[in-house]
């Protein structure tokens, strides 16, 4: 198991390096002159621009620049925002808790919806319940997440006025209000994920329920609850785990839109704001951070695989 983990960690290193290179490359795409932007834009004098260029190290060869960038990452320095001059790292760390709580909650909501739905559908394939589940999940995957968000806002916030349409309340201030401000965003972000997870779980369960060891389990008289909930689920869950790992990527991306709709101060809205401000260091910082989160999550998924499938542990 440790060997498995070590091997995966080892592979992640070159991936991370390439990630940083890609992010570095992104900067080169930008039209115009980042030095000028840093110096204050059109109004900056040539001297200011030159000074900015030197300060940002933009007058060096690209591989030197990359080296600065890369080594800077190690010391936790992602640069400073063009806009606010706040260190990128602190801007990100301010907003990460919001995004993470959004994603985590969305994932929980997704599982709460998807697991029962998937089980019900798999236990009675072809039935009305099954078709309903499949239809809703097909629609869920086809809908842009913000559409669901809009519908939810329409129904719950505007018509029924149960939940706030926008705004975020930090948990330290008021736990109930924090919860309320996140319910609709959680549902919005989680719904698409739930749809995907439900489909996969159903397919995986249908396959597992056909297996010989399920027949044995039934023959032991331990009851349908144990047969499905214990024996079937433990084996059916691994493919679902992969899907969940994949969903984290999409959930992270989804924060961009959801945070915009509900006006939540997270990484997503930070990125959008940075794009409109042309605040490149922030964009780079967010890109690297999110990629890092994805890589870490994938590692955790591999670890979880080891738990679910004892054969892997010996590897």
């Amino acid at each position, binding site marked *: 198991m440790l060997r498995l983990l070590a091997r995966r960690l080892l592979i992640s290193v070159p991936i991370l390096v390439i990630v940083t290179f890609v992010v570095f490359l992104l900067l080169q795409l930008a039209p115009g002159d980042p030095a000028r932007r840093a110096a204050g834009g059109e109004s900056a004098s040539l001297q200011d621009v030159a000074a900015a260029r030197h300060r940002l190290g933009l007058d060096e060869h690209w591989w030197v620049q990359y080296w600065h960038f890369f080594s800077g990452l190690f010391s936790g320095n992602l640069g400073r925002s063009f806009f606010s001059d706040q260190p990128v790292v602190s801007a990100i760390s301010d907003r990460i808790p919001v995004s993470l709580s959004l994603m985590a909650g969305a994932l929980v909501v997704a599982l709460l919806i998807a697991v029962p739905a998937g089980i019900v559908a798999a236990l009675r394939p072809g039935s009305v319940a099954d078709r309903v589940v499949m239809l809703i999940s097909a629609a869920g995957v086809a809908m842009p997440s913000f559409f669901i968000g809009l519908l939810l806002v329409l129904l719950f916030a505007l018509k029924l006025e149960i939940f706030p349409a926008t705004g975020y309340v930090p948990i330290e201030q008021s736990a109930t209000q924090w919860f309320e401000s996140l319910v609709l965003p959680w549902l919005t972000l989680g719904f698409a994920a739930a749809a995907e997870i439900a489909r996969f779980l159903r397919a995986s369960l249908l396959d597992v329920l056909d297996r010989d060891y399920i027949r044995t389990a039934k*023959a*032991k008289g331990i009851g349908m609850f144990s047969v499905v909930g214990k024996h079937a689920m433990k084996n059916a869950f691994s493919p679902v785990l992969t899907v969940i790992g994949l969903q984290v990527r999409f959930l992270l991306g989804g924060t961009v839109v959801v945070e915009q709709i509900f006006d939540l101060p997270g990484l997503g809205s930070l990125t959008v704001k940075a794009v409109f401000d042309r605040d490149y260091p922030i964009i780079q910082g967010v890109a690297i951070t999110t990629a890092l989160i994805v890589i870490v999550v994938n590692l955790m998924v591999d670890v979880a695989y080891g738990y679910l*499938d004892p054969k892997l542990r010996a590897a």
Partner: protein
Amino acid sequence: MRAADVQRSGSGELLAIDGLSVDVAAEGGPVRLVNEVSFAVGSQETVALVGESGSGKSVTAMSILGLMPPRITTTRGSVRFDGRELLGLRSRELDRVRGNDIAMIFQEPMTSLNPAFTIGEQIAEQVRRHRGLSRQMARERAISVLDLVGVPSAAQRIKAYPHEFSGGMRQRVMMAMALSCEPKLLIADEPTTALDVTIQALVLAELHSLQQQLAMSVLFITHDLGVVAETADRVVVMYAGQVVESGRTADVFANPQHPYTEGLLQSVPRGDTAGSRLWSIPGVMPTPDALPPGCHFHPRCAHAQPGVCDQGEPQLQNLGPGRSSRCVRHGELRLSGIGAGGPVESGGVTIADGGAR
């Protein structure tokens, strides 16, 4: 007279199957896999259910415990265990019988155990459920029953996973699981077919001794006549979803009353025919959706008589206490069996010397 009376061996029935018919939904309409099957298993008796693959023997066995997939299966008839009707019981009530009064072991030890749980856990959960034992006591029971079936170092092995065991060992684990709640009836669906011949002999011996120890009845499903000769008091022969012959093993082997049984017996390789050609019944068993008219066996039968065997629906006839045959011509035919004559072999190993029972 009930059909099951035909089969009674006289020592009181533990399991009485009467007119069991099982239909399965298929694209062209329901297909009948098991057709009015009746037989009984007495207490402390071993009955062998014999037939080729596709004869309906496994379906019969699984229907006893309601293990056929519910949505596509229709089951009719009666299955009485200890006087109680099992067909039509709700799942929850059937669960009290499964693994408890009636246990079942299956053919494929490699895939019949859940790879994600330790074998200790898989045994313990059954005992916890049916006997209400605590975790600790269930664990001890698991160890003791693994000892019983001959798994070495049981106390360490309960923490092991199925993939860490060989096929023969896994089958023993399955047996341990099945016996953990001391069932009155064990249904064994070809438990040794997937195993090495040498392991086969060991497992059978183990099964035999356990049966004696626990005073259990066994319904043994197999296509291997050598195994039947070794283990069974009585034998029920199935063909194309129907019972074609039944009786005490020695009787049926020495004096078969149905050409199919004769054919099965003749195709078993024998020690005294070394060097000569292996013979098998010509043709193939018909599939349930393409059954020939009249006697289902007649196209392959050496004794078939046109006009007699290809018409009507031959019924199972009572030939005496616990003896029956479906052959319409059984009275006229002199069929050859395996008597006190040659030894019976299976897979190159002499398993029984004929008629010792």
